[in-house]
Protein backbone atom coordinates (compact mmCIF):
# COMPACT_ATOMS: atom_id res chain seq x y z
CA UNK A 1 0.00 0.00 0.00
CA UNK A 2 1.53 3.34 -0.97
CA UNK A 3 1.96 6.22 1.43
CA UNK A 4 -0.30 8.35 -0.75
CA UNK A 5 -3.12 5.84 -0.39
CA UNK A 6 -2.78 5.84 3.40
CA UNK A 7 -2.83 9.63 3.50
CA UNK A 8 -5.95 9.83 1.39
CA UNK A 9 -7.71 7.22 3.48
CA UNK A 10 -8.08 9.73 6.32
CA UNK A 11 -9.86 12.97 5.40
CA UNK A 12 -7.86 16.14 5.93
CA UNK A 13 -8.97 18.26 8.86
CA UNK A 14 -10.98 21.32 7.85
CA UNK A 15 -9.72 24.86 8.26
CA UNK A 16 -12.26 25.49 11.03
CA UNK A 17 -11.15 22.41 12.93
CA UNK A 18 -7.49 23.37 12.66
CA UNK A 19 -8.19 26.93 13.83
CA UNK A 20 -10.09 25.51 16.80
CA UNK A 21 -7.06 23.36 17.66
CA UNK A 22 -4.79 26.37 17.43
CA UNK A 23 -7.16 28.14 19.82
CA UNK A 24 -5.52 25.90 22.45
CA UNK A 25 -2.10 27.47 21.84
CA UNK A 26 -1.69 30.21 24.42
CA UNK A 27 0.73 33.11 24.18
CA UNK A 28 3.63 32.06 26.41
CA UNK A 29 3.90 35.53 27.96
CA UNK A 30 0.15 36.12 28.36
CA UNK A 31 -1.27 32.63 28.99
CA UNK A 32 -4.95 33.64 28.91
CA UNK A 33 -5.10 34.57 25.23
CA UNK A 34 -4.48 32.24 22.32
CA UNK A 35 -2.51 32.87 19.18
CA UNK A 36 -5.87 32.99 17.37
CA UNK A 37 -7.31 35.61 19.79
CA UNK A 38 -4.22 37.78 19.35
CA UNK A 39 -4.32 37.62 15.57
CA UNK A 40 -0.86 36.04 15.37
CA UNK A 41 -2.10 33.19 13.15
CA UNK A 42 -2.98 34.78 9.82
CA UNK A 43 -3.94 31.70 7.79
CA UNK A 44 -3.80 27.91 7.62
CA UNK A 45 -4.01 25.85 4.45
CA UNK A 46 -3.12 22.46 3.11
CA UNK A 47 -0.24 22.73 0.71
CA UNK A 48 -0.62 21.60 -2.85
CA UNK A 49 1.12 18.27 -3.17
CA UNK A 50 2.19 18.94 -6.75
CA UNK A 51 5.94 19.12 -7.00
CA UNK A 52 6.50 17.96 -3.44
CA UNK A 53 8.92 15.12 -2.85
CA UNK A 54 6.83 13.62 -0.05
CA UNK A 55 3.24 12.60 -0.76
CA UNK A 56 2.23 13.13 2.86
CA UNK A 57 -0.06 16.20 3.00
CA UNK A 58 1.61 19.22 4.57
CA UNK A 59 -0.12 21.96 6.50
CA UNK A 60 1.06 25.54 6.09
CA UNK A 61 0.50 27.84 9.08
CA UNK A 62 1.17 31.52 8.43
CA UNK A 63 2.05 33.57 11.49
CA UNK A 64 3.12 37.16 12.05
CA UNK A 65 5.35 38.36 14.90
CA UNK A 66 3.99 40.91 17.37
CA UNK A 67 7.28 42.82 17.78
CA UNK A 68 10.44 42.35 15.67
CA UNK A 69 12.46 41.10 18.62
CA UNK A 70 9.72 39.27 20.51
CA UNK A 71 11.41 36.23 22.07
CA UNK A 72 8.05 34.41 22.22
CA UNK A 73 7.93 34.07 18.43
CA UNK A 74 10.00 30.88 18.30
CA UNK A 75 8.20 29.36 21.29
CA UNK A 76 4.87 30.05 19.58
CA UNK A 77 5.98 28.35 16.36
CA UNK A 78 7.13 25.32 18.36
CA UNK A 79 3.84 25.20 20.33
CA UNK A 80 1.84 25.33 17.09
CA UNK A 81 3.81 22.40 15.69
CA UNK A 82 3.40 20.29 18.80
CA UNK A 83 -0.38 20.88 19.07
CA UNK A 84 -0.83 19.93 15.43
CA UNK A 85 1.40 16.87 15.84
CA UNK A 86 -0.78 15.84 18.80
CA UNK A 87 -3.80 16.01 16.47
CA UNK A 88 -2.10 13.72 13.97
CA UNK A 89 -0.74 16.26 11.49
CA UNK A 90 2.87 15.23 10.97
CA UNK A 91 3.96 17.66 8.26
CA UNK A 92 3.67 21.26 9.46
CA UNK A 93 5.37 24.30 8.00
CA UNK A 94 5.17 27.48 10.09
CA UNK A 95 5.92 30.45 7.86
CA UNK A 96 6.44 34.01 9.10
CA UNK A 97 4.81 36.86 7.22
CA UNK A 98 5.69 40.47 8.11
CA UNK A 99 3.13 42.30 6.03
CA UNK A 100 0.59 43.48 6.94
CA UNK A 101 2.33 44.27 10.22
CA UNK A 102 0.65 42.88 13.33
CA UNK A 103 -1.59 45.28 15.19
CA UNK A 104 -3.51 45.06 18.47
CA UNK A 105 -6.57 46.03 16.41
CA UNK A 106 -6.77 42.37 15.38
CA UNK A 107 -7.34 41.27 18.95
CA UNK A 108 -10.81 39.76 19.40
CA UNK A 109 -13.32 41.22 21.91
CA UNK A 110 -13.06 37.93 23.84
CA UNK A 111 -9.29 38.36 24.06
CA UNK A 112 -9.66 41.91 25.37
CA UNK A 113 -12.03 40.69 28.07
CA UNK A 114 -9.70 37.79 28.95
CA UNK A 115 -6.83 40.24 29.35
CA UNK A 116 -8.87 42.48 31.62
CA UNK A 117 -9.97 39.53 33.78
CA UNK A 118 -6.31 38.47 34.04
CA UNK A 119 -5.33 41.95 35.29
CA UNK A 120 -3.90 43.41 32.08
CA UNK A 121 -5.65 46.51 30.72
CA UNK A 122 -6.43 45.96 27.01
CA UNK A 123 -5.44 48.63 24.44
CA UNK A 124 -7.59 51.73 24.81
CA UNK A 125 -6.94 53.26 21.42
CA UNK A 126 -7.11 51.74 18.00
CA UNK A 127 -3.52 51.50 16.79
CA UNK A 128 -4.36 52.32 13.18
CA UNK A 129 -6.13 55.49 12.21
CA UNK A 130 -5.83 59.19 12.86
CA UNK A 131 -4.08 58.84 16.21
CA UNK A 132 -1.19 56.94 14.71
CA UNK A 133 -0.86 58.38 11.24
CA UNK A 134 2.50 57.87 9.55
CA UNK A 135 3.32 61.55 9.68
CA UNK A 136 2.67 62.84 13.14
CA UNK A 137 3.61 66.02 14.93
CA UNK A 138 6.37 65.15 17.36
CA UNK A 139 4.97 67.53 19.97
CA UNK A 140 1.69 65.62 19.94
CA UNK A 141 3.67 62.38 20.05
CA UNK A 142 5.33 63.28 23.32
CA UNK A 143 1.97 64.22 24.84
CA UNK A 144 0.05 61.21 23.59
CA UNK A 145 0.63 58.92 26.55
CA UNK A 146 -0.57 61.43 29.08
CA UNK A 147 -3.71 62.21 27.03
CA UNK A 148 -5.09 58.69 27.22
CA UNK A 149 -6.99 57.44 30.26
CA UNK A 150 -6.34 53.74 30.76
CA UNK A 151 -9.03 52.22 33.03
CA UNK A 152 -7.77 50.08 35.90
CA UNK A 153 -8.50 46.41 35.14
CA UNK A 154 -9.28 45.75 38.82
CA UNK A 155 -11.52 48.63 39.97
CA UNK A 156 -12.29 50.27 36.58
CA UNK A 157 -11.18 53.68 37.85
CA UNK A 158 -10.00 56.00 35.10
CA UNK A 159 -7.68 57.80 37.50
CA UNK A 160 -4.51 55.95 36.58
CA UNK A 161 -1.00 57.02 35.77
CA UNK A 162 1.86 55.76 33.65
CA UNK A 163 4.74 54.35 35.71
CA UNK A 164 6.91 53.02 32.91
CA UNK A 165 6.58 53.01 29.13
CA UNK A 166 7.78 49.41 29.12
CA UNK A 167 6.49 46.66 31.39
CA UNK A 168 7.18 42.97 31.77
CA UNK A 169 7.29 42.45 27.98
CA UNK A 170 7.81 44.65 24.92
CA UNK A 171 4.06 44.75 24.24
CA UNK A 172 3.11 46.17 27.65
CA UNK A 173 3.53 49.36 29.67
CA UNK A 174 3.29 49.65 33.45
CA UNK A 175 0.52 51.75 35.04
CA UNK A 176 -0.74 52.37 38.53
CA UNK A 177 -4.29 53.04 39.71
CA UNK A 178 -4.60 56.19 41.83
CA UNK A 179 -7.77 54.86 43.51
CA UNK A 180 -7.03 51.23 44.43
CA UNK A 181 -3.25 51.88 44.22
CA UNK A 182 -2.58 48.59 42.43
CA UNK A 183 0.04 48.65 39.67
CA UNK A 184 -1.00 46.90 36.46
CA UNK A 185 0.21 46.03 32.98
CA UNK A 186 -1.27 47.83 29.99
CA UNK A 187 -1.25 46.14 26.58
CA UNK A 188 -0.10 49.02 24.37
CA UNK A 189 -1.94 49.86 21.15
CA UNK A 190 0.49 48.82 18.43
Amino acid at each position, binding site marked *: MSAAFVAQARPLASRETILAWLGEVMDPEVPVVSVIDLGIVRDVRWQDEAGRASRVPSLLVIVT*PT*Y*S*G*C*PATEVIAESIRSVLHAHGIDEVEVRTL*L*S*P*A*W*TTDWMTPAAREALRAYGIAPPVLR*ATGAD*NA*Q*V*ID*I*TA*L*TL*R*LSRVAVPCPRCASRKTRL*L*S*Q*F*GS*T*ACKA*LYQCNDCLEPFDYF*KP*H
Partner: protein
Amino acid sequence: MSHKFQYLLRLGDNCLVLSQQLAAWCGHGPALEEDLALTNVALDLLGQARLWLSYAGEVEGRGRDEDALAFGRDGLDFRNLLLVEQPNGHYGNTVARQFLFDAWHRQLLAGLCESSDPRIAEIAQKAVKEVRYHVERSAGLMIALGNGTALSHARMQDAVNMLWPYTNEWFDSDAIDAQCASAGVAPAASSLAAAWRADVETVLGRAGLTTPTYTGHQRGGKLGVHSEHLGRLLTALQFMQRAYPGAQW
Protein backbone atom coordinates in the same frame (compact mmCIF):
# COMPACT_ATOMS: atom_id res chain seq x y z
CA MET B 1 29.09 44.14 -4.02
CA SER B 2 25.66 45.43 -4.85
CA HIS B 3 24.45 48.80 -3.69
CA LYS B 4 21.42 47.23 -2.11
CA PHE B 5 23.57 44.85 -0.08
CA GLN B 6 25.66 47.75 1.19
CA TYR B 7 22.55 49.74 1.99
CA LEU B 8 21.02 46.83 3.93
CA LEU B 9 24.25 46.48 5.93
CA ARG B 10 23.92 50.13 6.92
CA LEU B 11 20.35 49.58 8.09
CA GLY B 12 21.18 46.37 9.95
CA ASP B 13 24.44 47.57 11.50
CA ASN B 14 22.85 50.72 12.93
CA CYS B 15 20.29 48.58 14.72
CA LEU B 16 22.80 45.92 15.81
CA VAL B 17 25.39 48.31 17.22
CA LEU B 18 22.87 50.50 19.04
CA SER B 19 21.14 47.42 20.42
CA GLN B 20 24.45 46.15 21.80
CA GLN B 21 25.14 49.53 23.40
CA LEU B 22 21.74 49.68 25.09
CA ALA B 23 22.01 46.09 26.27
CA ALA B 24 25.10 47.11 28.26
CA TRP B 25 22.74 49.09 30.53
CA CYS B 26 20.94 45.90 31.57
CA GLY B 27 21.12 45.77 35.35
CA HIS B 28 22.80 49.21 35.49
CA GLY B 29 19.93 51.57 34.63
CA PRO B 30 19.37 54.55 36.96
CA ALA B 31 15.91 53.18 37.81
CA LEU B 32 14.14 49.90 37.18
CA GLU B 33 11.78 51.53 34.68
CA GLU B 34 14.68 52.92 32.66
CA ASP B 35 16.51 49.61 32.78
CA LEU B 36 13.42 47.84 31.41
CA ALA B 37 12.83 50.47 28.76
CA LEU B 38 16.39 50.42 27.43
CA THR B 39 16.52 46.65 27.22
CA ASN B 40 13.14 46.55 25.49
CA VAL B 41 14.29 49.14 22.96
CA ALA B 42 17.46 47.07 22.53
CA LEU B 43 15.30 44.02 21.86
CA ASP B 44 13.26 45.81 19.19
CA LEU B 45 16.46 47.00 17.51
CA LEU B 46 17.96 43.52 17.65
CA GLY B 47 14.85 42.10 16.00
CA GLN B 48 15.12 44.74 13.29
CA ALA B 49 18.84 44.04 12.84
CA ARG B 50 18.05 40.35 12.28
CA LEU B 51 15.47 41.18 9.60
CA TRP B 52 17.81 43.57 7.75
CA LEU B 53 20.92 41.39 7.99
CA SER B 54 19.05 38.23 6.97
CA TYR B 55 17.87 40.02 3.85
CA ALA B 56 21.35 41.47 3.26
CA GLY B 57 22.75 37.93 3.29
CA GLU B 58 20.17 36.80 0.75
CA VAL B 59 20.86 39.78 -1.52
CA GLU B 60 24.60 39.14 -1.32
CA GLY B 61 24.02 35.53 -2.34
CA ARG B 62 27.22 34.11 -0.84
CA GLY B 63 25.53 32.00 1.79
CA ARG B 64 26.12 34.36 4.72
CA ASP B 65 23.21 34.47 7.13
CA GLU B 66 22.39 37.05 9.83
CA ASP B 67 24.79 35.40 12.29
CA ALA B 68 27.67 35.25 9.83
CA LEU B 69 27.21 38.96 9.12
CA ALA B 70 26.83 39.97 12.76
CA PHE B 71 29.57 37.85 14.27
CA GLY B 72 31.98 37.25 11.40
CA ARG B 73 32.77 40.69 10.02
CA ASP B 74 35.61 42.93 11.16
CA GLY B 75 35.11 46.56 12.14
CA LEU B 76 36.12 47.84 8.72
CA ASP B 77 33.22 45.89 7.22
CA PHE B 78 30.62 47.46 9.51
CA ARG B 79 28.53 50.20 7.92
CA ASN B 80 26.83 51.78 10.93
CA LEU B 81 26.73 55.52 11.55
CA LEU B 82 29.37 56.97 13.87
CA LEU B 83 26.64 58.26 16.19
CA VAL B 84 25.47 54.83 17.34
CA GLU B 85 28.98 53.68 18.30
CA GLN B 86 29.62 56.69 20.55
CA PRO B 87 29.99 55.54 24.18
CA ASN B 88 27.02 55.19 26.52
CA GLY B 89 28.63 57.71 28.89
CA HIS B 90 26.28 58.82 31.65
CA TYR B 91 22.55 58.35 31.28
CA GLY B 92 22.10 61.77 29.68
CA ASN B 93 24.57 60.83 26.93
CA THR B 94 22.64 57.63 26.22
CA VAL B 95 19.29 59.46 26.18
CA ALA B 96 20.55 62.23 23.88
CA ARG B 97 22.13 59.72 21.48
CA GLN B 98 18.89 57.76 21.45
CA PHE B 99 16.69 60.76 20.79
CA LEU B 100 18.84 62.12 17.95
CA PHE B 101 18.90 58.66 16.38
CA ASP B 102 15.21 57.82 16.96
CA ALA B 103 14.07 61.09 15.38
CA TRP B 104 16.09 60.25 12.24
CA HIS B 105 15.26 56.54 12.29
CA ARG B 106 11.53 57.26 12.30
CA GLN B 107 11.82 59.54 9.26
CA LEU B 108 13.97 56.99 7.45
CA LEU B 109 11.62 54.09 8.14
CA ALA B 110 8.57 56.11 7.09
CA GLY B 111 10.35 56.64 3.76
CA LEU B 112 11.37 52.99 3.48
CA CYS B 113 7.72 51.93 3.92
CA GLU B 114 7.31 53.17 0.33
CA SER B 115 10.33 51.25 -0.98
CA SER B 116 10.09 49.70 -4.44
CA ASP B 117 11.60 46.57 -2.87
CA PRO B 118 8.63 44.82 -1.20
CA ARG B 119 10.80 43.07 1.39
CA ILE B 120 12.34 46.37 2.53
CA ALA B 121 8.89 47.97 2.64
CA GLU B 122 7.42 45.24 4.83
CA ILE B 123 10.35 45.25 7.28
CA ALA B 124 10.07 49.05 7.52
CA GLN B 125 6.30 48.87 8.07
CA LYS B 126 6.94 46.55 10.98
CA ALA B 127 9.84 48.54 12.43
CA VAL B 128 8.32 52.02 12.12
CA LYS B 129 5.62 51.15 14.63
CA GLU B 130 8.24 50.21 17.19
CA VAL B 131 10.41 53.22 16.49
CA ARG B 132 7.47 55.61 16.83
CA TYR B 133 7.24 54.42 20.44
CA HIS B 134 11.02 54.76 20.90
CA VAL B 135 11.02 58.40 19.84
CA GLU B 136 7.98 59.11 21.98
CA ARG B 137 9.93 57.89 24.97
CA SER B 138 13.31 59.45 24.19
CA ALA B 139 11.76 62.83 23.30
CA GLY B 140 9.82 62.77 26.56
CA LEU B 141 13.02 62.09 28.50
CA MET B 142 14.86 64.92 26.73
CA ILE B 143 12.10 67.30 27.81
CA ALA B 144 12.04 65.97 31.37
CA LEU B 145 15.81 66.08 31.87
CA GLY B 146 16.28 69.39 30.05
CA ASN B 147 13.73 70.96 32.40
CA GLY B 148 14.97 69.08 35.47
CA THR B 149 17.65 70.41 37.79
CA ALA B 150 20.44 72.78 36.83
CA LEU B 151 22.74 69.75 36.76
CA SER B 152 20.50 67.63 34.51
CA HIS B 153 19.98 70.61 32.19
CA ALA B 154 23.73 71.23 31.92
CA ARG B 155 24.44 67.56 31.30
CA MET B 156 21.82 67.29 28.58
CA GLN B 157 23.15 70.40 26.84
CA ASP B 158 26.69 68.99 27.01
CA ALA B 159 25.49 65.66 25.66
CA VAL B 160 23.71 67.28 22.71
CA ASN B 161 26.73 69.48 21.97
CA MET B 162 29.08 66.51 22.08
CA LEU B 163 26.94 64.32 19.79
CA TRP B 164 25.97 67.04 17.34
CA PRO B 165 28.98 66.54 15.01
CA TYR B 166 27.74 63.00 14.35
CA THR B 167 24.27 64.02 13.21
CA ASN B 168 24.96 65.02 9.64
CA GLU B 169 26.57 61.89 8.24
CA TRP B 170 23.16 60.29 7.65
CA PHE B 171 22.10 63.14 5.32
CA ASP B 172 25.22 62.86 3.13
CA SER B 173 24.45 61.11 -0.10
CA ASP B 174 27.16 58.87 -1.55
CA ALA B 175 27.03 56.55 -4.57
CA ILE B 176 25.22 53.84 -2.59
CA ASP B 177 22.54 56.21 -1.29
CA ALA B 178 22.11 57.80 -4.70
CA GLN B 179 21.77 54.44 -6.45
CA CYS B 180 19.18 53.21 -3.94
CA ALA B 181 17.27 56.49 -4.12
CA SER B 182 17.15 56.52 -7.91
CA ALA B 183 15.90 52.92 -7.94
CA GLY B 184 13.17 53.86 -5.47
CA VAL B 185 14.62 51.43 -2.92
CA ALA B 186 15.19 54.14 -0.29
CA PRO B 187 14.39 57.81 0.22
CA ALA B 188 17.18 60.23 -0.76
CA ALA B 189 19.44 60.68 2.27
CA SER B 190 19.20 64.48 2.16
CA SER B 191 15.40 64.42 1.91
CA LEU B 192 15.08 63.54 5.61
CA ALA B 193 17.06 66.53 6.86
CA ALA B 194 14.33 69.17 7.07
CA ALA B 195 11.82 66.98 8.91
CA TRP B 196 14.49 65.68 11.31
CA ARG B 197 15.73 69.17 12.05
CA ALA B 198 12.20 70.44 12.69
CA ASP B 199 11.49 67.59 15.12
CA VAL B 200 14.78 68.03 16.94
CA GLU B 201 14.38 71.79 17.26
CA THR B 202 10.85 71.35 18.58
CA VAL B 203 11.91 68.90 21.27
CA LEU B 204 15.10 70.74 22.24
CA GLY B 205 13.05 73.93 22.45
CA ARG B 206 10.52 72.33 24.79
CA ALA B 207 13.43 70.89 26.77
CA GLY B 208 14.87 74.38 27.23
CA LEU B 209 18.01 73.30 25.36
CA THR B 210 19.86 75.15 22.63
CA THR B 211 20.22 73.59 19.21
CA PRO B 212 23.96 73.64 18.44
CA THR B 213 25.18 75.67 15.50
CA TYR B 214 28.38 73.68 15.09
CA THR B 215 28.85 72.50 11.52
CA GLY B 216 32.20 70.65 11.54
CA HIS B 217 30.69 67.24 11.01
CA GLN B 218 32.26 63.82 11.33
CA ARG B 219 31.63 61.19 8.69
CA GLY B 220 32.90 57.80 7.58
CA GLY B 221 30.83 55.16 9.35
CA LYS B 222 28.73 54.40 6.27
CA LEU B 223 31.91 53.51 4.38
CA GLY B 224 33.55 51.56 7.21
CA VAL B 225 35.78 54.31 8.61
CA HIS B 226 34.96 54.13 12.30
CA SER B 227 35.92 55.71 15.61
CA GLU B 228 38.00 53.75 18.09
CA HIS B 229 34.87 52.76 20.00
CA LEU B 230 33.54 50.24 17.49
CA GLY B 231 36.39 47.77 17.90
CA ARG B 232 35.88 47.45 21.63
CA LEU B 233 32.15 47.03 21.16
CA LEU B 234 32.66 44.27 18.59
CA THR B 235 35.11 42.51 20.90
CA ALA B 236 32.27 41.96 23.37
CA LEU B 237 29.64 41.32 20.71
CA GLN B 238 31.65 38.79 18.72
CA PHE B 239 33.75 37.10 21.39
CA MET B 240 31.82 33.85 21.63
CA GLN B 241 31.65 33.18 17.89
CA ARG B 242 35.28 34.19 17.41
CA ALA B 243 36.47 31.91 20.22
CA TYR B 244 34.11 29.04 19.39
CA PRO B 245 33.11 29.39 15.73
CA GLY B 246 29.67 27.95 15.02
CA ALA B 247 28.83 27.44 18.70
CA GLN B 248 25.08 27.16 19.32
CA TRP B 249 22.80 27.32 22.35
